[in-house]
């Protein structure tokens, strides 16, 4: 495995690192990942560095890059919503990987806000053969509400944390200063989400949904995905799992390793 710093895009102002496999395998496929929140292309705690290297060691190309205006990439000259601009950056990234390495099939990985452009592009672009959504979209369902009402009081950690906060005067982080919207996301409605996911499934785009313990307040069972989609059984090519011991940004080494192992195995297992 070797790593190579690259610039690409119409003006050569998008910056990324390609992890190149020593012996390319699994057809000609590349995995793309970009920014999570304010983190630049390495991801929180080098998550995307570790994932890139694991993927390359398994024979896949991996490109981690900064979308325009983030990290080391310059802002785009044209205007648009953050999701639309990031989607153009993903398009540039796929075009670059095809020109540079002959790669024609792609897997996109998105975590948290990174899910927005991942979902938008995966829903429309037929070059995308798979997508991984980590702590992605969720919508409250009847099942979610029942599970929350039944299970939440039974979690001892919840009461321990509450007691600590009361004793120490620690409070949950405020969402932001009142009236100061510094970051806004465009999430699809539940019906749009369901239509997109079912359409991707029907055209054989494989999807992996992972949810951490950091978002159990809004997603509390793998069943919830089926409930969100309004189907009784998971459609073909769709997997969903919880990683309850991981926090939202995978701040523990063992959980980062578990995520890298899981995503790498899934990417390698995709049919050629």
């Amino acid at each position, binding site marked *: 495995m070797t*790593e*190579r*710093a*690259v*610039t690409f895009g119409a003006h050569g102002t998008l*910056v990324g*690192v390609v992890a190149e496999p020593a012996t390319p395998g699994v057809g000609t496929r590349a995995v793309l990942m970009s920014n999570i*929140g*304010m*983190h*630049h*292309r*390495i991801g*929180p*705690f*080098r998550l995307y*560095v*570790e994932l890139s290297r694991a993927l390359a060691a398994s024979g896949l190309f991996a490109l981690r890059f900064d979308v325009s205006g983030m*990290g*080391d990439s*310059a*802002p785009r000259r044209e205007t648009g919503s953050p999701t639309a601009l990031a989607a153009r950056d993903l398009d540039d990234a796929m075009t670059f990987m095809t020109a540079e390495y002959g790669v024609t099939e792609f897997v996109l990985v998105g975590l948290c806000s990174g899910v927005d452009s991942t979902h938008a592009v995966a829903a429309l672009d037929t070059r995308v053969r798979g997508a991984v959504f980590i702590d992605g979209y969720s919508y409250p369902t009847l099942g979610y509400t029942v599970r929350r009402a039944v299970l939440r009081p039974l979690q001892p*950690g919840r009461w*321990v*944390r509450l007691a*600590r*906060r009361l004793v*120490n005067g*620690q409070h*949950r*982080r405020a969402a932001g200063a009142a009236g100061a919207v510094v970051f806004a996301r465009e999430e699809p409605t539940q019906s749009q989400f369901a239509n997109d996911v079912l359409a991707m499934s029907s055209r054989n785009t494989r999807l992996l949904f992972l949810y*951490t*313990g*950091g978002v*159990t*307040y809004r997603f509390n069972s793998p069943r919830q995905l089926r409930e969100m989609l309004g189907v009784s059984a998971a459609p073909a090519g769709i997997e969903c799992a919880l990683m*309850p*011991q*991981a*926090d*939202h*940004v995978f*701040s*523990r*080494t063992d959980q980062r390793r578990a995520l890298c192992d899981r995503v790498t195995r899934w990417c390698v297992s995709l049919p050629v």
Partner: protein
Amino acid sequence: MLHDLTTAVSPVVPAYYVSGTHALLGIHHVASGTSVRELGVVLCHPAPQEYSQTYWAMHKLAGMLAASGFHVLRFDYAGTGDSSGASDDVSLHGWVGDIAGAMQQLRDISGVRRVALVGIRLGAALALRAVAAGARARDVVLWEPVVSGEAYLSELDAVEMRRLAMLNYPEPDERLDDELMGYPFPATLRAETRAIDLTTEPVGRISRLLVVSTAITPAHEALEGYMRAAGADVTMRAVPDPVLYAGDGHPSDALLSHAIPLAIVSFLHDSAS
């Protein structure tokens, strides 16, 4: 015209280069502006625990310096950022050597004859150690420097406890001994860090030294006295600006500095004149 630098965008050239046994990623901010200076600048990032939070500020400082005519190199120490190496296989000694390698890399790719060092937090301590080890940097800037390793570790430990208290998982009492703020932190690295005391360590040949911080602390004043005694021309500047950990050390916080980067550009502008 320093006020024009705040929105400047200079070209960046990312490239890996060999330093010791590692391939390090360097980001070269190419000098622009009306006159390219013979003084280049290497920026020394903090430890991984504060790396992401300061990335935006270091990127901004580099862009401002480049727009003012300085060639600038930011780089990732071995085992950090995009550079080769595992996160749990790092040492301060190795990172000090990486700074010397980065200075040579900047000379090679830009042709500058002289190189100044700017280090933030732990990177400031490493920059001083690099000069003490023989790296030729007559102009050094210490931004919110770590002066005492013991005090620095206490601060990080406190931030870690606040961070864990905000998480759903792991539980606050599940703290791992060999990790700190999300990164591996083996006992050897903890011991190396604890041993830092810039007021007793050997000092290299430094002509001009700037210590810049949002507030000058007794530790900074002790460092000032020590460096003056060693013959350095020391400037101390307290510059009101956002501080790290304004949001309790949440991993998604970013240090949105503005005034301190301007002060650093001004200081190096004088050095290059």
